[in-house]
């Protein structure tokens, strides 16, 4: 049975698309047939982060409208065997996605995939609603910053009331906190909310902490999900998160600033 995972946050620019690309790729690398869907209608970007922007022919809305079939619209990743990408439409029609249409496509994808990762747009409007409505799990991407935490709490309220699972009174959507753009040294200096603070306020289980990392920009420049950069902190942190998502017990890393040697502490080390 395929599982639907929504990557959501309320606030924009917190790392949803980066996360969708990394987690989706990670699941496929572990042998699970995975598709990542871009729900950000009008602001397609997952294709760039995945490096398949020049291979987009048909999109999600074309499939909903019957202008293309799924096989024509799905882009098969060239690096990772079991990975597909379904790009968003660039239409400006905000009613392009309908619940019936989305459900039809998800039902068809479920037959051939183990995981369906839905990259939500920002906001709490229609696009975000469509992305979360059919979800079994939610990755709530949060930055250690007041407006992001508040928006995440808002999104949690919506996940608990405006999803299919909530409306049918089924088991609620499983919620996971993914704290991204984390700077341990700023936390240690009292300039940034710590992981414990955010966990305490949102009170949902922590899936992982992704450090603020230069590797993310560099990966996006190249159109390569950061999880493929296995030597980098962010790449490793995403890999840990994928393993936890699959039920492994993995210790949290990158929560403390790198220990500085005596030399750097004496000369110029902060």
């Amino acid at each position: 049975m395929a599982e639907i995972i929504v990557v959501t946050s309320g606030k924009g620019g917190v790392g949803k698309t980066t996360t969708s690309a990394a987690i989706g790729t990670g699941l496929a690398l572990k042998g699970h047939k995975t598709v990542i869907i871009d729900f950000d209608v009008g602001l397609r970007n997952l294709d760039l982060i995945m490096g398949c922007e020049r291979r987009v022919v048909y999109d999600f809305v074309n499939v909903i409208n019957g202008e293309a079939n799924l096989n024509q619209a799905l882009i098969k990743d060239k690096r990772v065997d079991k990975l597909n990408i379904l790009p968003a439409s660039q239409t400006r029609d905000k009613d392009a996605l309908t619940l019936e249409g989305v459900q039809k496509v998800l039902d068809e994808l479920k037959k051939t995939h183990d995981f369906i990762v839905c990259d939500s747009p920002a906001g709490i409007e229609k696009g975000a609603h469509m992305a979360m409505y059919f979800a079994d799990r939610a990755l709530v991407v949060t930055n250690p910053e007041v407006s992001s935490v508040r928006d995440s709490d808002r999104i949690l309220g919506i996940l608990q009331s405006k999803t299919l699972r909530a409306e049918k009174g089924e088991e609620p959507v499983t919620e996971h906190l993914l704290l991204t753009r984390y700077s341990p040294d700023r936390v240690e200096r009292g300039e940034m909310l710590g992981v414990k603070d955010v966990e305490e306020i949102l009170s949902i289980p922590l899936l992982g902490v992704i450090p603020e990392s230069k590797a993310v920009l560099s990966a996006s420049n190249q159109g390569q999900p950061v999880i493929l950069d296995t030597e980098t902190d962010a790449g490793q942190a995403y890999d840990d998160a994928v393993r936890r998502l699959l039920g492994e017990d993995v210790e949290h890393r990158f929560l403390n600033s790198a220990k500085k040697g005596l030399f750097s502490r004496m000369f110029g080390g902060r």
Partner: protein
Amino acid sequence: MSLLEFFKTKKKSSASTAKERLQIIVAHERSQRDQPDYLPALQRDLVAVISKYVPINDDMVSVSLDQNEDCAVLELNITLPEAEIAS
């Protein structure tokens, strides 16, 4: 406590201010989360009607809805100005 820690904790960090502010606003918003959308409008209308008879402000009326298994209770709290009670 070491001398270093003493200086570190002397001034409240901006992160702890952030945490306190978040705890308050998040608790407030959660308490309003399950309220129907019409409550703020109902509250405005109530204030308008009551003000015809008694001088009151917005913040003197509070409306909340409690839902149980088989009934819903609309709770209305109106604080009247002291002079009005005496007369």
